[in-house]
């Protein structure tokens, strides 16, 4: 098991990444808390030694995506209405890019993680394939389709 110091360092380092992935998949802050605890509990118990910080980050992203998908597959959650709205960003922090986030959130589920990993995290298709467990060709296909949808919605505001 990792030490409290290691855990705290990891939480500080990767919380924003985990929160962004949760934002794309989940509907309320209770689920986000669950995911945070699941991901970092797995990290705390894992004896895995990472070759570099990049590997560690990729591991966190993969575990978070899987945890979010598992949670959203849950029958009970699928069939209940969340107590809160889909919004996880406090109203006062909303900026003029809300429409961009909204367009990404409205993408089909399978395109969201590819778009996030490519545009936000800056991974290439090969790395995305490694993280998500899909083939490189599928990554390209999903990216192309997601781009098409985003261009339709965002028009000239969507810069690749």
């Amino acid at each position, binding site marked *: 098991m990792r030490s409290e110091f290691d855990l705290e360092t990891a939480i500080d380092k990767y*919380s*924003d990444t985990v929160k*962004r992935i949760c934002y794309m998949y989940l509907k309320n802050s209770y689920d*986000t808390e669950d995911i945070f*605890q699941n991901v970092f509990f797995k990290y705390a*118990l894992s004896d895995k030694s990472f070759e570099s910080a990049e590997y560690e980050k990729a591991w966190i992203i993969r575990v978070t995506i899987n945890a979010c998908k598992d949670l959203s597959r849950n029958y009970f959650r699928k069939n209940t209405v969340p107590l809160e709205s889909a919004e996880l960003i406090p109203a006062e922090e909303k900026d003029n890019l809300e429409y*961009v*986030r909204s367009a990404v959130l409205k993408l089909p589920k399978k395109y969201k993680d590819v778009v996030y990993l490519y545009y936000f995290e800056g991974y290439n298709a090969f790395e995305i394939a490694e993280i998500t467990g899909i083939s490189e060709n599928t990554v390209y296909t999903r990216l192309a389709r997601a781009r098409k949808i985003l261009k339709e919605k965002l028009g000239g505001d969507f810069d690749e």
Partner: protein
Amino acid sequence: MNKIKSAFEEIKADDALKEKTLNAVMEKANKKVSFPLKHIIAAVSAAVILAASGMTAWAYCFQPVDYVSVDGSVNVELGVNRLDRVVSVECYDEPVSTDLKMKKCDEAIRLLELSENDNVEYNSSETAEEAKSLGLTCGQFKAYCQAVEAGAVLDTDEIKNLSPCEIRELAGIKDDCAQSSDEKTTAGNTQGVKHHGTSKANGHGHHRRNNK
């Protein structure tokens, strides 16, 4: 910077969420680490139950409870389990060519192709143990007991290579072996040997093949 990156930059985990996560994870992890004994006890209990059931199954399937001793043209002792299957074959002279293991007892005896003056005896495991301690088959042991009862003094080492009939002859006991050999010509069906189980008398069961 692309707009997606700019848009998602705004999403950040607040300190309260980080702190809550750290506390919850540490509490959960400490609980898990502080109760390894529970897991060890569960694992040991499971291992004991598994071993006990495995040993019971082994004893039921592979532990002989009765011994069938054949003395005559072949000298062999078959260990038979609770399911009436042969689980051990001990030959005292030439090995038996047929594989008798896990055959039904009657089937194994039939495969031995015995002649009519061969002795087939059913013995308890106690009798077999006694016979083994003297280095004799059950048939030899029984003949030896009869010889001792009749007052003969025999060395067990000397009778190891004798058939039960020969031991009885040596002790001067009138035996029906000779009669049996006379009746050889009337030998008929060799089937029909039934497992009579362990005889209560003297702890020795005895069954002579009836070929008439």
